[in-house]
């Protein structure tokens, strides 16, 4: 297998196929992180695409990250944060509009729920969704993407001690939700 560093060198030399090889290698992990973070496949695909285009642009301009995978996940994380902000804004605007409507006359067309995160146990999905975004991203980076705390600190901007605290709190909260019916 060709090392990441060699593929990056080829991308910097103008070899687009080398970037395709990096995408093949890491797309699944990026999608996993974004999907678990955002809860919707479509949002996750969009965030991953935005991130990979940024990564490609940066490499073509000569950027040489020391460790490619955590750097890449950091860019995906930033795109996910941006999506969360947009979703929050959309919700606020919608609710402002919705509050002005007469519920007696307002009708909503039923839809089939396509695009929902169907591959996870609903209980697990609910537990993840209930986490505050910063707790969720710390939990996913540590236990799903299995980064070191130092790598997490570099890409999140938080201190190692803060991240350890977030991971602990997230783990306790997830575990409590997952075991509350069986305790």
């Amino acid at each position, binding site marked *: 297998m060709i090392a990441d560093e060699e593929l990056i060198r080829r991308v910097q030399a103008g070899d687009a196929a080398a970037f395709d090889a990096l995408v093949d290698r890491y797309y699944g992990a990026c999608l996993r992180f974004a999907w678990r973070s955002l809860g919707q496949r479509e949002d996750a695909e*969009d965030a991953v695409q935005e991130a990979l285009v940024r990564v490609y642009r940066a490499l073509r301009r000569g950027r040489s990250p020391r460790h490619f995978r955590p750097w890449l996940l950091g860019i995906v994380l930033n795109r996910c944060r941006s999506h969360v902000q947009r979703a929050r804004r959309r919700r606020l605007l919608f609710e402002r509009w919705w509050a002005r409507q007469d519920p007696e006359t307002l009708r909503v067309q039923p839809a*089939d729920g396509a695009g929902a995160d169907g591959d996870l146990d609903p209980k697990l999905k609910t537990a993840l969704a209930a986490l505050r975004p910063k707790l969720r991203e710390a939990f996913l980076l540590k*236990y799903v993407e299995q980064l070191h705390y130092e790598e997490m600190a570099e890409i999140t901007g938080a201190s190692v001690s803060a991240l350890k605290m977030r991971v602990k709190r997230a*783990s306790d909260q997830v575990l409590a939700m997952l075991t509350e019916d069986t305790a």
Partner: protein
Amino acid sequence: MSELDPRLEPWLAALRKEPLARPEARARLAAALRAEDARAARRILSPPAALAAGIALVALTSAFWLALWRLDTPERGVAAEELTSAQFVLHARDARSVSVVGDFNDWDPRATPLTRTGDGVWSAVVQLRPGTVRYAYLVDGTEWRADPHAVTLHEDFGRPTSVAYIVPQEAP
């Protein structure tokens, strides 16, 4: 990972399973990367040509059609070549009014009314940036309607919205 409670392990195994990429998502990514190459080439070779370049709309719906025009009034802060004109179309024979609401107009039902073009077909043209567009139709000011031909998402506030994708067109 010494602090990990072993009861979490089976749940983490599920979370660590990599989802399969959908071919259409990879195709959109490939198109976006090719467009990035084209943009870089335009920056180097022919800046004026970039101003005339359009952006293609790829939608998952037959009701959300591609149209390309040169833009006379680009959105503030967005280069002209990064916008496209897209046409929203809804068939609503008995409607008295139809508007489209989405991220692009702050979900304001007054911002983008559709015009009846005959035989119950309503349409409007909106200039959009590449990326995902979330939208819905509002019929007669009261009926919230997802696009029947588009992918529908359930928002966390319980209302369906439609999604379509805009990807940059490759340079000619």
